[in-house]
């Protein structure tokens, strides 16, 4: 099971990187989302998979009766999802503002901070 998911993670990474390399901020944001999903899946996978048994101790028991899914990666992923979501929201709004102010569909044209033809250093003392 893990191996198939490992390959799936690879596809997630591939697609997210391909999206991130497009010069459009919106596509890059989609890449960010997919990247986050890929990482989460990856953590999930390397924490090993257990089919269908959630890490919840049934009522009345003190310890789970059967093998359960590994809870720790799940907790880590939850944290990562939330953080990723917060950052995604920020980047989204940033993109929105960048569109408004910089009118940039193409990151290559967003050159306010790093001008296209930067002045040469003065050849004097």
């Amino acid at each position, binding site marked *: 099971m893990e191996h198939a998911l490992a390959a799936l993670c690879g596809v997630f990474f591939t697609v997210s990187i391909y999206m991130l390399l497009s010069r459009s901020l919106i596509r890059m944001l989609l890449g960010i989302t997919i990247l986050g999903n890929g990482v989460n899946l990856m953590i999930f996978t390397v924490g090993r998979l257990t089919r*269908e*048994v959630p890490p*919840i101790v049934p009522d009345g028991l003190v310890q789970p009766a059967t093998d359960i899914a590994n809870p720790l990666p799940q907790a880590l992923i939850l944290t990562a999802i939330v953080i990723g979501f917060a950052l995604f929201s920020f980047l989204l709004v940033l993109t929105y503002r960048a569109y408004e102010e910089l009118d940039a569909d193409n990151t290559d044209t967003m050159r306010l901070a790093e001008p296209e033809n930067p002045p040469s250093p003065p050849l004097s003392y």
Partner: protein
Amino acid sequence: MSPEQFLDFAIAVALGLLSLAMLLVTWRIMRGPSLPDRILALDMLVNIGIGYIVIVAIKTGFMLYLDIAISLGLIGFLATIAFARFVLQRWRIRTTNHSQPNNPEGEG
């Protein structure tokens, strides 16, 4: 067939049907052609997902999945209205800007 066997059979068949349904709907999302078509298909995908979760709940006997299904119903609804709003707002902005002719089909 014992009740358990029947239930297992029904679950297996239902999972197959739902999987097929999801693939079909996914195909519609990819095909479009218009934005509302995709939104509709996405909404449908969420509905199928609800069913899928419920079946998994039956299959595994963990009733806690039901709550996920319920929440998904509520939240999927929100996504759809947000998209609907998006369709409307975009049209408004375009028509108030008068910059380009309204050609919703062209945008996929």
